[in-house]
Each structure stands twice: as C-alpha cells, then as structure tokens.
C-alpha cells in the first residue's frame, strides 16, 4: 500500500494549484473550477486519512462535501449567468459594484 503521506502531499499540491487559480485567473468560470479543485483536494486528504485509520466516518464527510459542492456550483453558476446578463462579461475585474 502507498503511505498516506503521499496522498496528503498530492492533496496539498492540488489545493495550492486551486488557490493559484482563484488568485490569478480572471475568468469567473475558471475561478469556480479552481474552487472545485480545492474541494476535491480536501476530499482526497479525507479519504486517505479514513483509509489509514480504517474509519468510514471520513468517507461520510466526503459524501457531504460533494453534496454541498453540487449545491454551490448550481447557485454559483446561476449567479454568474445573472451577472453576465447585466454586465455582459465574465471577467471578475469588471464586477466591482460592491467596492467601497
């Protein structure tokens, strides 16, 4: 079996890539994809630790994370469509109406 640390290291790398995507990219849809990537990286770490400790609870938690991610994507993409209808762009630099 592969040691748990390897999985957690892979999860850390994927999470960092997701954070970079949120910080660097300006296409709002790609930013959303990066958030999904971060959620997936967290899931991978949870499943790896569940396997190490032989506790199914970790997998249950991943199940809940996937459910919440699905709801988040639905609402987020609906928001994005609404923004696109009014602003005609998916560039998050253009959407600064709430700036003080």
């Amino acid at each position: 079996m592969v040691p748990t640390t390897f999985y957690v290291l892979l999860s850390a790398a994927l999470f960092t890539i997701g954070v970079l995507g949120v910080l660097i990219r300006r296409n709002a849809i790609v930013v959303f994809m990066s958030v999904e990537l971060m959620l997936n990286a967290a899931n991978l770490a949870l499943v790896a630790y569940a396997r190490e400790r032989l506790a199914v609870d970790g997998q249950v938690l991943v199940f809940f994370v996937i459910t919440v991610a699905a709801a988040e994507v639905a609402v987020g993409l609906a928001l994005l469509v609404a923004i696109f209808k009014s602003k005609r762009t998916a560039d998050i630099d253009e959407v600064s109406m709430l700036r003080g």
Partner: protein
Amino acid sequence: MDFVLFFLTAAIALAGAIAMLVARNAIHSALFLLLNFGAIAVLFLLLQSPFLFTIQLSIYAGAIMVLFLFVVMLLGAEQVEAAQDKLPWQQPLALVMGAGLLVIAVITAVRGGSNDAPPGGEAAEAFGDPASLGELLFTEYLLPFQITGIILLVAVIGVVVLNQQRNQAQSEETPSERPGSRVQP
C-alpha cells in the same frame, strides 16, 4: 503495483490541474478539470472507496462538469481575459503566496502523516464497503444527511429565484428596449 498506479494517476491529476490553470480557453480548462476528476476517482478506488469512486464519476465528472461546460457555451465566455490586466502586480504576488502555502501544507503533511503503509488485515478487507457507509449515514449521521436534503432544496429554489427575478426586473425597467436588447452581442 500499487506504487506504479499511484504515481501514474497522481501525475495525471497534477498535469490536469496545472493545464486547467494555464489553459487560455475556458472549455479546455473544463476538460482538463474533467481529467483531474477522473484521476482522483481512480485514487479513491486505490484507497478502497468504491462508493465515493462512483459518486465522484457520476456527480463531479458527470453532472457538475456538464453544468460548467453548458454555462461556458451558453455565455460564450471562453476567452474573457483578452483585455489588459488591471492589477498586474497581483500575479507575481499570488505565485509567491501560493509557494508559501505549498511549503506550509507540505510541512504539515509530513509532520502529521505517517510514512508507514496503512494497516492491512481482516479489518482492512471489510473497510470501504458501501453497505457500512450507508448504515452509518442512516444511523449516526441521520441529521446531517437530512440537512443535505434541505441544502439541495434551497439550492434548487435559489437557482430558480435568481434567474426569475432578473427576467422580471428586465421587463419592468425597459419594456420598450426588450426586442432590441436581444440582438446585442
């Protein structure tokens, strides 16, 4: 054998994630993310989680990615980053802070995880059975499970309301411009 499979899948997952990050076209990004999700699903299978493998493929790689691709194509938002970046200093700063985060995460992972192989034996053989997961879901985690149902319901209602309100506001504000506004690019 396990190691070969792990490193191969991990390489595919990392390549998919990095390609998603650098791809200029949002559709390419979505497809690379699909590759990454598939690789992570295989890793779930390596970690003895057949139920999560199925969920990952059907919900993430199936439903969520179809939603992403659909919205990208609906909005025609494949390439919205052609304009000049308003915050040019942000990108190098993001790279530096990302590297810092990676260092912290790696240190935490190395200190917290064990380098030994996970336990085997009879308990490991029975681990990850979908039946045991379902049993836990309907006994110990019954309340959170029902709350996820409410969350999904709220999400569905939210999506409907978000797009309905927009249509009403548009027709109330500019009743005369409505035919013309549709042909605008």
